[in-house]
């Protein structure tokens, strides 16, 4: 009995000892909880919404950042849209010059009271001057630094990139948002930082980036209220910009890249008065490389469906014969666009479609042997374009609008 009692007290003592030591150890962990070194308050951050990198005439790099001003949103927000001057602006643009991007950034940091934060930067603009001399050196910073996202979109601006950031578009909060939204509409190419990296390290060594410029403000708008928009494509050989493509040629490129989403094809059927507009709803593009008897050839197969959105001709599209005419014209038009783009690209030897990659995937051995000669092969390559088009829907009316019954053809 006594023995047992003794044992219990010993055990109790051990228990008490244990619990005290556990509490002490728990207290010891408290200093680790706060993470003092990397504590970041949101009001210590300068959130970059867009950045541009330009090259000055003396060879130095100019970095401009568009920094979000939190005050502008938190104080009511609805202050009657964009007021004139700096008062209503939601962002401010700061820039500085350095011998490379990171030096420019460290100098720039001295002008911004908060820590520059790249995590939300969705737009990177390379100025035309820098693009022509090569972007690889500055790209290294963007891919190495843990903050900038590979998802961010990359552009080349006509003239200086800083001007794009400085514009104060009336509709969106800041110009970075405008370009990003325009890219989301698939009106031009949409290239992310990762895509750029992939194109540069890939087989074809050619890059296409969306080319942007500022639409001058309309009458009555303030001076800076221009809107940046995508008006073509900048073509790169390796990391240096060598040329551009017009908006029309860019659309052909979009067809080839299977990125056609939101624009309208307007056609003029042969021998018939008036125009028909078609909205491509879905398209499927297959690029099939062939090597036959040492001849490198590519067959582009496009299968597209569209909806009629305007019919200015007198054709009644409910009649199979008329529908055939419209479909054939649609098919020819798409083919023509693709050919136009190919002509341009092959003329310059810029394989931005990634045909080299397609060949490498199908014929790795032959490609590796011919890799050094790829540019010549690409320029001389025969391309078959085979478009199948269907018009699936005609909208809410089944005859050309406002036309007396007897004037409609093929009733």
């Amino acid at each position, binding site marked *: 009995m006594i023995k047992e009692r003794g044992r219990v007290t010993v055990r109790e003592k051990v228990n008490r000892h244990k619990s005290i030591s556990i509490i002490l*150890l728990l207290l010891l*962990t408290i200093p*680790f909880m706060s*993470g003092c*070194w*990397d504590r970041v308050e949101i009001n210590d951050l300068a959130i970059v919404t867009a950045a541009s990198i330009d090259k000055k005439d003396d060879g130095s790099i100019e970095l401009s950042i568009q920094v979000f001003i939190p005050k502008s949103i938190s104080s009511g927000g609805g202050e009657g849209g964009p007021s004139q001057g700096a008062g209503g602006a939601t962002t401010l643009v700061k820039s500085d010059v350095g011998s490379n991007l990171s030096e420019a950034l460290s100098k720039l940091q001295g002008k911004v009271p908060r820590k520059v934060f790249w*995590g939300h930067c969705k737009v990177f603009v390379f100025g035309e001057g820098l693009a022509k001399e090569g972007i690889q050196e500055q790209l290294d910073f963007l891919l190495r630094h*843990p903050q900038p*996202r*590979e*998802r961010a979109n990359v552009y080349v601006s006509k003239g200086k990139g800083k001007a794009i950031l400085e514009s104060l578009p009336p509709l969106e909060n800041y110009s970075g948002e405008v370009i990003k939204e325009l890219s*989301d509409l698939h009106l031009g190419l949409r290239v*992310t930082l*990762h895509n750029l*990296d*992939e194109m540069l*390290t*890939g*087989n074809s060594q050619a890059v296409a980036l969306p080319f942007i410029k500022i639409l001058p403000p309309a009458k009555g708008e303030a001076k800076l209220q221009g809107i940046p928009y995508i008006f073509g494509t900048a073509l790169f050989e390796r990391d240096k910009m060598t040329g551009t493509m017009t908006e029309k040629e860019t659309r052909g490129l979009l067809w080839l890249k299977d990125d056609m989403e939101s624009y309208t094809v307007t056609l003029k059927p042969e021998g018939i008065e008036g125009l028909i507009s078609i909205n491509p709803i879905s398209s499927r593009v297959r690029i099939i490389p062939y090597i036959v008897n040492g001849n490198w050839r590519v067959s582009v197969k496009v299968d597209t469906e569209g909806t009629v959105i305007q019919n200015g001709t007198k054709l009644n599209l409910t009649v199979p014969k008329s529908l055939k005419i419209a479909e054939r014209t649609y098919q020819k038009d798409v083919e023509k666009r693709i050919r136009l783009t190919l002509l341009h690209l092959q003329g310059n030897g810029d394989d931005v479609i990634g045909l080299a990659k397609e060949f*490498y*995937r*199908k014929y*790795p*051995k032959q490609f*590796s042997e011919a890799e050094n000669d790829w540019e010549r092969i690409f320029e001389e390559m025969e391309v078959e374009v085979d478009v199948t088009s269907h018009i699936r829907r005609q909208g809410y009316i089944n005859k050309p609008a406002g036309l007396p019954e007897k004037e409609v053809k093929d009733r």
Partner: protein
Amino acid sequence: MEKGKISSLQMAFMLYPTIVATAILGIPSVTAKFAKTDFWMSPIFASFIGYLTVYLAVKLHKLYPGQTIIQYSEQIIGRWLGKIIGFLFLSFYIQVTGLIVREYAEFVVDSFLIDTPIIVVMASMVLLCAFVVHGGLEGLGRGALLFIPVFLIPQIILFILVFPDLEFKNIFPVLANGVMPPLKGSIVPGGWYTEFFLISFLLPFLVDKKKGMRYGMMTVFAVMATLVIVNLVVLFVLGPTTSSKVYPLMNVARYISFADFFEHMESFIMAIWVVGAFVKISVFFYATALGTAQWLKLTDYRPIVWPLGIFIVITGFWSISNSMDLERYNVNAFPFYGAVIQTLLPLLLLLIAMISNKNKKNKQSNTTDAPMK
């Protein structure tokens, strides 16, 4: 020494994160350097060394039930040689545990806690693991069981969210340069598979010893499947740029933009990384502590947990000078080091044990007429 018991399932759940945790983040890039677009095959080739290692560990344990390698190596090749083998194992495990802690902290400091001194990240993790190891194997097993969803669910969510960005065509060309590149690529993941020898420290404490082999093999298969899936996802998203990234899976997670709403998913990777590293370091730590106690013939391993913890932090801190060094070690040294210690040495031991057992049997049956058993 260890009075706790674990089930085979708990053992499997301890081993799975132990191998996968550090293998999914940086290894795809290293493998891609050798195997180009075929790097997804490498874990399949590499897994054979995993099956072999588990087989060896289970066979050895069958010959000497209830003992770990530290104990039975003395029985197989004599006391002094056995002690030397044991020392090799212990020094290997202390060093490797230190390097794993360093690897864990290196990633955390590289991408999240940039200004934090690395020693703080390392020490706090080892402190946590020391608590678990001090608590015993049973606590560790239960912890692993508890954490496996935290480890698996973020991976699954990640793969679902990244689905729109997968470009399946990246897999071509398959085996453009024959089987050699993916075979070469499998050397590095092979090093990770040799870590399955840790099973040797867990087998003695299984409740259901018969299932040990089956669950061990299943774990190797699960690890292989996970690595293949991870490598495929990385390949489909990053394509030819994979080999230039230090943490390809991190880049994949950052690339997610699902419905313009699910973005910035790196916290998932962080969850996988921290939980996985926690289980991994704990299991290694436990093996080290148990092994050291057995080697020194102590009655309990708990008193040496704390000093060993300090020792591990110091090895991790001092044996590598920078993250480039760590990558070089992982590529050039560890696969061979790991394979020699964790696969070749046990293989030798098993061969010697089998031969000497046969001799013993023959002798016994020659000298005494009574049949064995």
